C-alpha cells in the first residue's frame, strides 16, 4: 500500500493550521466582549493573558483540587448529564469519547505513516511507527475499531431515542444532528479502510481480529473477486483521514464549536463559580 507522505504532511499541516486559526478567531470574538467588571479598556492580547493568568493562578492555588475535580466530573465523565438522563449520557459519552479517541488515534496513525521510511505502511522502524503506523498493531487496531463502534453505537441510540421521543424539541437541533451524520459517514469510510487494509496486507486472523468490525468487513469484501485491494485501501485511507481532519479543523468555525469549547467553559465556570 503506497502512500504519498508529503501529501499526508500537507493535509495534516493545513488542517492543524485551520483548526488553530479557528480557535484564535473564536477567541478573538470572545475577547471583544466586556471584562467581568463591565469595562473594556484593555486590549485583547492583554485580556487574553489576564484570563490565562487567572487560569494558571487557580491551577496552582488551593482551588486546584476543585478545578481538577471539575475537569474530570464535567469535562471527562459529564457527571451532570449522567444525573439527568442515563440514556443521554450513554449517547454523549459514546459519541464524544468515540470521536475524541478516533481523532487522536487517526492523527497518530497518519503521523506515523507520514514519518515511516519508504513511503509505505509497514511495521518496521522506530517504536511509534511500529505501534501506530499499521493496523496490524493490536493497540491501534483495537482503539481504531472500538472508537468507531462507539460513535456508531451512540448515533444509533440517538436515532432510536429521537424516534421514541414524543416532544421532538427535546432532541438536539436538526442542524446539530448533521454532525452525527457526518461523523458516522467518516466512521464508515474508516471501517472500509480497515477492511480493505486487511485484504491488501493479507493480514492473518490473529492480528486482524483485534479490529473485529474491520475484520468482519474484510471477510465480506473478500467475497468480491478480482480486485487489487492496495489502491482501494489507500483511497479509503486518504478519504477517511482527509474528511476527519477537515471536520475537526472546521469545528471552531461553525455550530459544532461546543465540542471543543463546551468542556473548556464547563471547567472555567466551575473555577469562577459564585458561592451563594
Amino acid at each position, binding site marked *: 500500500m503506497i502512500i504519498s507522505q508529503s501529501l499526508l504532511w500537507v493535509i495534516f499541516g493545513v488542517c492543524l493550521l485551520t483548526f488553530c486559526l479557528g480557535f484564535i*478567531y*473564536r477567541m478573538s*470574538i*470572545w*475577547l*471583544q*466582549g*466586556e*471584562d*467581568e467588571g*463591565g469595562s*473594556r479598556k484593555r486590549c485583547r492580547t492583554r*485580556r487574553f493573558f489576564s*484570563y490565562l493568568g487567572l487560569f494558571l493562578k487557580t491551577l496552582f492555588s488551593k482551588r486546584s483540587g476543585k478545578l481538577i475535580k471539575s475537569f474530570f466530573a*464535567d469535562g471527562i465523565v*459529564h457527571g*451532570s*448529564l449522567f444525573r*439527568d*438522563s442515563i440514556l*443521554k449520557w450513554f449517547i454523549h459519552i459514546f459519541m464524544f469519547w468515540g470521536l475524541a479517541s478516533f481523532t487522536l488515534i487517526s492523527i497518530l496513525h497518519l503521523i506515523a505513516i507520514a514519518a515511516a521510511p519508504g513511503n509505505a505502511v509497514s511495521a518496521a522502524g522506530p517504536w511509534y511507527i511500529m505501534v501506530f503506523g499499521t493496523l496490524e498493531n493490536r493497540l491501534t487496531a483495537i482503539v481504531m475499531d472500538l472508537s468507531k463502534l462507539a460513535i456508531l453505537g451512540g448515533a444509533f441510540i440517538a436515532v432510536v431515542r429521537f424516534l421514541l421521543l414524543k*416532544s421532538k*424539541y*427535546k*432532541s*438536539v*437541533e436538526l442542524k*446539530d444532528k448533521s454532525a452525527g451524520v457526518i461523523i458516522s459517514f467518516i466512521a464508515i469510510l474508516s471501517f472500509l479502510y480497515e477492511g480493505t487494509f486487511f485484504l491488501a496486507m493479507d493480514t492473518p486472523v490473529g492480528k486482524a481480529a483485534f479490529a473485529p468490525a474491520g475484520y468482519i468487513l474484510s471477510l465480506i469484501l473478500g467475497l468480491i473477486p478480482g480486485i487489487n485491494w492496495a489502491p482501494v485501501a489507500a483511497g479509503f485511507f486518504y478519504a477517511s483521514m482527509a474528511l476527519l481532519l477537515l471536520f475537526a479543523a472546521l469545528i471552531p468555525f461553525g*455550530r459544532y*464549536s*461546543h465540542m471543543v*469549547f*463546551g*468542556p*473548556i*467553559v*464547563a471547567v*472555567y*465556570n*466551575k473555577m*469562577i*463559580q459564585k458561592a*451563594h
Partner: protein
Amino acid sequence: MKLGKLNTRQLAEIDACTRCGNCLDLCSAYQGSKDVSISPKKKMEKLKNAVNKEYGLISKLLKRELTKEEMEAISHAAFACTMCSRCEVDCHININLQDLWLKLREIMVDEGQYPEIMDMMRNRLKQSRNVSFDTNEGRTDWIKQVPGIPEDRYVKDKAEVIYFVGCVSSFSPRTFKIPRSIVQIFQKADVDFSLLGDDEWCCGFPLFSSGFSKDFLEFAEHNIKRVNKTGAKYLVTSCPSCYHMWSHTYPEKTDVKMGFDVLHIVQYLYMLVKEGKLKLKKVEKKVTFHDPCDLGRNSGIYEEPRNLLKAIPGVEFVELSNSGEYATCCGGGGNVESIDAELSSNIAAIKAKEIIETGADVVTTSCQQCVRTIATALKKQKSKIKAVDLTQFILESISAEED
C-alpha cells in the same frame, strides 16, 4: 443591534452551549406556554446567530446586521423569562444562564427593544419611589390594623433591626398580612426594630431585573445611606427579591459600604428561635414549603425555612416533588405577570398541581409574590389548601394556646 455589552465569558458560553435541550423541561416559561421560541435553548441559538452577525468576520465584510424581526424575537424571549434560573441548575456545562438573561434584558433596554409596560413601571418608580400607583407616604398604612402600635408607627431614628417591608407588602392589600405578622412576631419577641416609613424606597429589583441597570443605582444608594444612619445591626427583609438585592446586588454594584448585616426574615426568625426568644407552640397540620427563586436558587437559603417549620410541634412537613434548588417558579418572577398575565397564570397552575399532589393542608412560602400567585392558582383549581407566608404560620404557632 449591538451585543457589545456581553462579556468575554458570556460570549464563550454562547459558543459552548450544546443546545442539548435539557433546559426545556425545566423552563417554567416554556412549560407554561409550550412556545419553544422562548425556551433557553432557542434563546441561545438566537444569541449565537446574533453574535455571529455582530462579531463574525464574514458579517463584518458583508456588513450584515440583525434584522428588526430578529431583534424583536430576541426581546420577546428575553422578557418572557421568569428569571427563576432553574435552567442554570441542570446545565451540563455550567453556563451562568441567569447572568446572561439579565444582560440580554440590559441590551434590549439599551436598544429600545422592550415591552412598553416597562416604561410605565420605570416612570412610576422614578416618581413615587415604589411600584404601586400610591404615593410613598402611604408606606406604613398597612400597620394601622396591628394591635398595640406606638404613635411613631415604629418609624424610629435608631434601632437594632430595620425591617425593610418592600413595595408589594406595603401597598398590596392582599399581602398586608405578611408585614403585620412580622410586626406582631417582633412585638412578642421584644425585638428593637424600626421601619423606614416613607424613607423606604423600592429596592430597585423591578428596574434591575428588567434591564434598567443604571436607574436602580439611585435607589440602592439612597436605601443603604438611610439604613446606615439608623446604626442598625441587622436589616431584615420579608421579600426574597429585596433580600437578594440587598445581600448580593447592592454590594456588587455600588460603592456605598453597608454597616449592618442583611438577613431574610426566615434567617432572623430562626435565630430568634435558637436564642429562645420565640416559643413555637403546637400546630397540627400537614405543611409543605415552596422555595421562592430569589431566596433559594438565587440566594442559597434552603435550610432556615425548613428548620423553622420542623421546629413547630405537631407539624407534618412534606416536601414538594420539586424542592430546594430544583423548585419550579410560581409564575410571579421576572416581571412576567405584568408583561404576560396568561403565561404567569399557566405557570402558577403547574405549581398548584404540584402542591395539591402533596396532600398538604397548608403551603407556606417566604415571598409575598409567591403567596399571591399560588393562592390565586389554588383557588382557580378549587383547592382547599391554604397558601400563606411562613411568617403568618409562625405567628399562628406562637399565638396558639398551650396544651
